[in-house]
């Protein structure tokens, strides 16, 4: 990794690049907000960001610091409330959900509730927030998180948000909407996918510049499947970095 950009910046750029134009995307706090801002400027001008307290279709001119603040419905097409948004997801109108977490396992399950046992916990984390709903109700979810062995774990201490649960057929057996689940994990080292239709386990799809497959394996607490060629992703472009640093997060809240 060169000194030109940080792993966080790379993660934001990769996330922005996979955002689809004219798609609806449920945006959680943090990196997804920066990625959605960047995507609207460069790759997906008609991305429809959806924020859980009511904003639909905002133009993300300034970085939201909270999922309900004015920036989440700035020049939006609608500003309603959390029930409307969550029911919109439940009705199948939200294509992508962007999530974070403290732990992720090989089936893409996420933990943002506790480290250790439930009560009293070793570490009490914020809890599900909208995470469980996004992971349950959006068509496809993308997780964005720091890559190390404490985070990429064999088994989450607590499954806050459903990935593929215990694997093939488990979501449907639990009653979750059909044909949903995680498709991507963007980390600080690479881009992962899932072996959907087969084992439903996490696969390695691409590495960041100057990161090796071995780096990723060593920083992952479970066996990552490698089913095809692992590509190396392009570093952030000068334009991506300029926009990120000068326009999107000039106060350096995240980057």
């Amino acid at each position, binding site marked *: 990794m060169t000194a030109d950009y940080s792993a966080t910046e790379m993660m934001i750029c990769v996330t922005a690049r996979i955002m689809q134009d004219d798609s609806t995307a449920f945006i959680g*706090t*943090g990196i997804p907000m920066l990625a959605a801002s960047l995507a609207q400027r460069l790759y997906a001008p008609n991305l429809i960001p959806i924020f*859980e*307290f*009511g*904003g639909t279709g905002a133009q993300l001119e300034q970085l939201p*610091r*909270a*999922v*309900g*603040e*004015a*920036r*989440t*419905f*700035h020049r939006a097409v609608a*500003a*309603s*409330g*959390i*029930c409307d948004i*969550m029911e919109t997801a*439940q009705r199948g109108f939200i294509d992508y959900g962007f999530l974070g977490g403290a732990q992720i396992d090989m089936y893409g*399950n996420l933990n943002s*509730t506790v480290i250790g046992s*439930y*009560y*009293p*916990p*070793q*570490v*009490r*984390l*914020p*809890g*599900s*927030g*909208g*995470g*469980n*709903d996004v*992971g*349950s*109700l959006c068509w496809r979810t993308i997780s964005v998180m720091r890559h190390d062995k404490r985070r990429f774990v064999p088994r989450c201490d*607590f*499954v*806050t*948000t*459903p990935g593929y*649960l215990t694997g093939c057929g*488990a*979501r449907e*057996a*639990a*009653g*979750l*909407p059909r044909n949903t689940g995680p498709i991507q994990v963007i980390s600080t080292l690479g881009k992962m996918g899932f072996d959907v239709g087969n084992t439903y386990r996490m696969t390695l799809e691409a590495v960041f510049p100057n990161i090796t497959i071995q780096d990723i394996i060593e920083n992952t607490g479970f066996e990552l499947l490698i089913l095809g060629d692992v590509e190396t992703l392009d570093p952030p472009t000068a334009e991506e970095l300029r926009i990120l640093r000068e326009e999107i997060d000039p106060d350096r*809240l*995240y980057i």
Partner: protein
Amino acid sequence: MHVLEEGRGELIQVPDIEAFREWNRTRKSRRLEDKRMTEQEAIRAFVTDGCYIGTELYGTVRCPMSLSREVVRQSPKNLRVAGQGVLELDLWLAAGLVEALDITYIGLEVYGTSHVLRRAVESQQVKRTAEWSNAAISWRLKAAAMGIPFLPIRSMLGTDTFRYSAAKVVEDPFTHQKICLLPALILDVGLIHVHRADRFGNAQIEGISGFAFELARASKRLIISAEEIVETEQIRQYPDRTIIPYYLVDAVVHAPFGSHPGEMVYVYARDEEEIRAWVEASQTVDGASGYLNRFIHSVPDHMAYLNLIGEERLAKLRGEAERR
């Protein structure tokens, strides 16, 4: 109704829909009465030891912060709380007021996890917690607002969030799929901050409405704080803008900058400096209690708090507000 699975979480507030109906019949006046009072009077009148309480929206967005600070000032004991919160619940937790939490998210958003929550739960100062998703808490309020004991939903299923909740899974008799049932959540006291209200409690909100509609209708006692008190004439001219009709409301508190340091869309912006002050202070027990002393216990009321913040800063926040 055959229950297939059941969360092991405690039902911290039991959904007695019949008692709620009876309460709404006998304890909620239909009379147009002047309900204006101060934060102090409202919290004293309605927030009691052990009550189940909830606030609407997050501490940084249209949240009843002047009411939340008054709760700290009066220090009711053993509150049971619907835990979807940022600054406001941090204050209550730091003040040691909370005994039980229906928790979905307590954190500081852009500034990360809540140290106060960590200390309060890890030390077992908060004695009982049950897990829910954000939608689940809102839908539980919606069930109460609809006057029904439960609502079916399609999230929570298959996860530990469900296992540590008090929800149930049954087979839907129409489609024969598994579905999650949430118990209604009836609050003893609800707090909501709005853009404007008349003296009877008819209230309007601008921008996103969060879960104000649902929480207002799910509360046995409802305290409204408002940036502005308007004439009822304005309400009657735009009845379609009323999100909370007066008969739901028990107290109306005039609270300009009532959401500070959070924002009030179209009126004033977030006070980033003040939010960061709490983020810093709350890292330690001493820091948090120093903050509580300085910004809450040392000032008698909301007006004194605003004086402490200073007109210069408030004017700046007004200037930074989102415009239509």
